[in-house]
């Protein structure tokens, strides 16, 4: 409760950090803000080349099958890679002035989330250009799915950013971890490739049901599996609660450890 009240009090700081991050992210680069779109498109191109030309997966409209999963994945992966040093990056401010430290992960998660929303504009553009169409009745399900993912990513950011302060190696391990995690999630392949009997364990990865839900809504144009979505919600909330506890505990000595 104290946390929510303080975060509300500091809402202008969160907003200003988000604005600064969105504006500053590509400052000084020629294409500027366009990188928000170009980056996922380039990744999409590479994976599509590999998995539909070289390793033929036999999935119809593979690029869309991939794209609707890749965009949320990039949002999640940000919590592992750049998110892990978001506290380190604000060293000067933390050592010198008080503000609720939770403001930083919240602001960072929000700006990554906004980036994902911008990328979804491209997803819908692709859907429109390729005349694939959307099912308007299931489209609103995107809102709870995105909300669940926001909770998950926020929780991850709380954990990775605070632990990295005490153990700087984490920053380097995260690159590999994020790659492994991606292949353990149904990003480049469909859930039909999971061996029988493994599914139950596979779904303990909260990103699995979340990605499947995005894909159900945008690719298969059907309702997401509510059981799986419930599981994802439960897991995400647990990650967030653990994240808050860890962050609360570790943030007390940030100013000394930085």
């Amino acid at each position, binding site marked *: 409760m104290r946390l929510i009240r303080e975060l509300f*009090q500091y809402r202008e700081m969160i907003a200003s950090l988000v604005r600064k991050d969105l504006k500053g992210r590509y400052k000084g680069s020629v294409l500027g803000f366009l990188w928000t779109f170009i980056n996922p498109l380039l990744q999409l191109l590479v994976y599509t080349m590999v998995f539909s030309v070289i390793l033929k997966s036999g999935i119809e409209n593979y690029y869309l099958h991939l794209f609707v999963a890749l965009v949320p994945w990039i949002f999640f992966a940000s919590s592992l890679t750049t998110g892990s040093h978001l506290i380190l990056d604000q060293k000067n401010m933390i050592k010198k*002035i008080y503000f609720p430290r939770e403001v930083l992960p919240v602001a960072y998660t929000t700006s990554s989330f906004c980036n994902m929303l911008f990328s979804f504009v491209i997803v819908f553009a692709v859907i429109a250009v390729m005349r694939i169409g959307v099912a308007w009745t299931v489209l609103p399900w995107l809102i709870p799915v995105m909300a669940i993912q926001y909770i998950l990513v926020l929780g991850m950011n709380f954990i990775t950013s605070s632990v990295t302060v*005490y153990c700087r190696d984490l920053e380097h391990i995260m690159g590999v971890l994020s790659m492994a995690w991606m292949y353990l999630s149904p990003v480049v392949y469909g859930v039909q490739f999971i061996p029988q009997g493994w599914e139950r364990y596979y779904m303990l990865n909260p990103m699995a049901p979340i990605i499947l839900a995005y894909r159900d809504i945008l690719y298969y144009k059907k309702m997401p599996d509510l059981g799986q979505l419930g599981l994802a919600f439960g897991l995400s909330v647990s990650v967030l609660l653990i994240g808050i506890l860890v962050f609360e505990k570790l943030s007390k000595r940030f100013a000394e450890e930085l």
Partner: protein
Amino acid sequence: MAAIEIHDLHKKFRVYADQGHSLKEKLLSKKRRSYEDRWVLNGISLEVEKGEAIALVGKNGCGKSTLLKLMSRILFPESGTVKLNGRVSSLIELGAGFHPDMTGRENIYTNASIFGLTHKEIDERLQEIIDFSEMEEFIDNPVRTYSSGMYMRLAFSVAIHVGADILLIDEILAVGDAAFQAKCFERLMEIKGEGTTIVIVSHSMAQLERICDRTVWIDEGKIRMEGAPNEVHPKYLEYMGQRRQLSPKKNVPQSQTAASDAQPPETPAKWTGIRLLNEQGEPIEKFATGDTVILELSYRAEPEKAEEVLIGLALYRADKALCYGTNTQREHLAPIVLKETGTIRCRFSPMNLVAGTYWFDAAMRRMDMFAYDYAAQAVRFAVYDPIDETGVTRLDHTWSFDAADS
């Protein structure tokens, strides 16, 4: 309800033999990971009433800044509690979050938001902040084009306008030029008058005396003494004076040469020591208003090269205000012929400066004003005052009252 309640506060820092943050270092070298605990606060309890202004004094490393950081919640204590009731603004670090590429106006928003202000609250205060900083014409230029003085002025202006209930200040009253400093100080007095609680860490006793109701002297992580500033400060200064005299090397006032007066590398006359003495001829660093003091200037010269000189003195207060200046020529004294070594004494009887910290500059000049030696801040001293007078110097005066029955 007290504005600040501190109960039995303990704080230690880990001093790493070799701070390794990487996993390899943490796993492989247990020894290198070893650290020592250094206790900086050993049980401090303190209560500050709403609207009260307190000063924290103590020698470097005594824990006063740590205490201030604990109050501002940058650090957390090992044990004990700190409770602050109300919005806190800290003037510990000015200009937090300032971005050089953004304009002054944009930075006001960023900086104020870090103090927990909402957009609307900042809108309401914006004009006041700009007016106070005297930066109207530059406010839409990027901050990187500002001079450091302008930067500090803007930052101070934001910090002081956030409408805090509690203001924590660490040695920052050295912002900008003398005029702006005076303005900051006035503003602080005003804020205090509005009921804001203020905690100041400073070395300027004179400043503290003007604003604070109470002084807390911290030594070795404990409260050594607390009470009215005019009771605590003389004791503190006395203690600091004794400490300094224990290390005599530091105490020998070395003459420094000022950059403004160019002089040849081999000057034919130099100050060798400048001291302040009491009537008994003992060196002192502090005295009470009205005491007799003697400024003793020792020099070495090459009589065959050195021409006749005049001696100039300038007395400054710690805020760089010139309190008094004179020289032997203006006082129509004969030019001085230098010997190989010699001592010049100037007696002030009585020295009527009011409480504060001051210093003397001393110059030895040829009659054409060329400086053989100019010792800036040659001797610093503190004056304490049993009477709570203000201003620069005590003027001789007597009171008379009508008899009751006339």
